[in-house]
């Protein structure tokens, strides 16, 4: 297999916050087109891994490669421009902006006009602005939010806000999409819908997905490969059915039997 098939490579990354080791010597490879799940109990270091990949944190040790290119220590906006987009565990929409503007803001970094061309409305800017708006409309249409385009994002129902956050991430034209607990706070019906939605965008946008999730139904239902971590280290990896029966995973989630007495 050539190295270009590997979308993301985490090469022995470690993250320490003072004395706390959030992630320790973590290794992982994601190949093009995969839908990988990253699970683990609270505080296992899953979101820390996301924050390292997206440049919010720089790993204390180890390197991160995206399509073979070392992206360790780059700024979040640079990493987004290279093709990694994310959503957040606690939804972080631009709450007071319209649904449309949320999506448009995510395509701003591709704009090729300077600020004066934009303020004075030069034809070159107007053309790009129109293209951005058309594209945003298509995107909103494909995620089923086009009817809400002029609504204030903070006023949408919870499930739609999640959807919008994913749509906003897609507007950056990602090759790798990181979803941080997309089903958090959803009812079973919304979760069901979300699973279909994630599989749909994966096909439609041809994007590799790494997903953190607590809801086992989601993880087992859509992920092809699952990585389990606990206390900053990887403890298991495999297909959903293997993970379900893995004793170390069960131990991480439920504790050892004899520990209950201690």
């Amino acid at each position, binding site marked *: 297999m050539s190295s270009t098939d590997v979308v993301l490579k985490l090469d022995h990354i470690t993250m320490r916050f003072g004395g706390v080791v959030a992630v320790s010597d973590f290794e992982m490879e994601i190949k093009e087109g995969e839908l990988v799940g990253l699970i683990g109990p609270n505080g296992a270091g899953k979101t820390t891994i996301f924050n390292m990949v997206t440049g919010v944190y720089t790993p204390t040790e180890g390197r991160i490669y995206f399509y073979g290119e070392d992206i360790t220590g780059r700024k979040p906006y640079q990493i987004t421009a290279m093709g990694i987009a994310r959503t957040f565990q606690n939804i972080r929409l631009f709450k*007071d902006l319209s649904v449309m503007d949320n999506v448009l803001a995510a395509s701003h970094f*591709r704009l090729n006009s300077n*600020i004066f061309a934009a303020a004075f409305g030069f034809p070159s*800017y107007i053309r790009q602005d129109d293209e951005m708006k058309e594209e945003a409309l298509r995107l909103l249409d494909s995620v089923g939010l086009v009817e809400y385009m002029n609504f204030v994002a903070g006023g949408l129902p919870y499930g739609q806000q999640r959807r919008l956050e994913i749509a906003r991430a897609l507007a950056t034209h990602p090759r790798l999409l990181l979803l941080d607990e997309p089903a958090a706070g959803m009812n079973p019906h919304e979760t069901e819908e979300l699973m279909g939605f994630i599989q749909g965008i994966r096909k439609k946008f041809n994007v590799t997905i790494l997903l953190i999730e607590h809801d086992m139904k989601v993880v087992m239902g859509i992920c092809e490969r699952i990585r389990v971590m606990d206390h900053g280290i990887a403890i298991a990896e495999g297909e959903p059915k293997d993970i379900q029966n893995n004793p170390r995973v069960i131990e991480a989630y439920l504790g050892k039997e004899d520990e209950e007495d201690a």
Partner: protein
Amino acid sequence: MNRKTRFLLNVLLVAGLFFLLYLAKHYLNSYMVRIITLGGVYVVLAVSYNLVNGITGQFSLGPNAFMAVGAYTASLLTLSVASKQQMFFIEPLIWPFNSVQIHFFPATLLGGVAGGLTAYLVGIPSFRLRGDYLAIVTLGFGEIVRVIANNVIFLTNGALGLKDIPNYTNIYWAWGWAVFTFFFVRKLTDSSYGRAFKAIREDEIAAEAMGINPFKHKMLSFVISGFFAGVGGALLAHLITTISPVLFSFFITFNLLIIIVLGGLGSSTGAAIAAVLFAVISELLRAIESPMNLGFIHIPGIPGMRMVVFAILLVVFMIFWPRGIMGRKELTWDLFFNRKRGGVS
């Protein structure tokens, strides 16, 4: 509504405004004309201040510093060589200001450029950090500029200040700049850059994760705001014709803060409306600063009473109308002709 109709409507609006200004200039007394002119200068200052504080969401307390820089730069350029020689009797003015005199318009432009450059220098260290450092840095910087102006006598004439600045700022210059500032900021806010500014205001971490470079965009907003603050300072100097370091104390920033909060943080229309109201109301309130005889009781004139009233007004607004006159909404043509579309800014 397409761009062409909107443009035509805007042209009509501006033409209508200038017709009203023409009428005002010819039929109102010079005192009222002066208030209207001052209103125009306030519009320039408030709309540009709102770009940073309301639209980009960065809490700056620095427009007084940028105004001072703009006012001094422009005044030193428009004053005649002879009067500068006469004025700077403690220490002579340095080159090139001692030997040039240029027209008002390029002088205001250069005042703006000086304001923008100053904003750039203040912005570089402040925006490296996230959070409220900008407020602290700009507040301190305002004081620094005042102290420098008091002591760099060969450039500012120290505490004596500059006097006999030609009274070039008439109603048309003030409102010409007001209209330009307003439309520039409005167009910018509605553009892709404006969306990036607002995204940073709403959630800087999310904005950065969506590919927006926060440092670059905060700097852009801050420098543009600094430019217009410099222009506003230049206009103010050529309206009141005498400037000294005391004039550019934090007091001016405080007034501008009242204006943009009352107008609605984040709304350029609100800032413009509140700026005009502020100019008019603060003149009307002069009455309460003069001695009053209510028949049974005699109140001596208390200078500064106006500010008490404004402070109370601000408190009342914050309780009953916390989002200001306009909130974050803008007046748009769509709002008039096509009421279906919600005015989301």
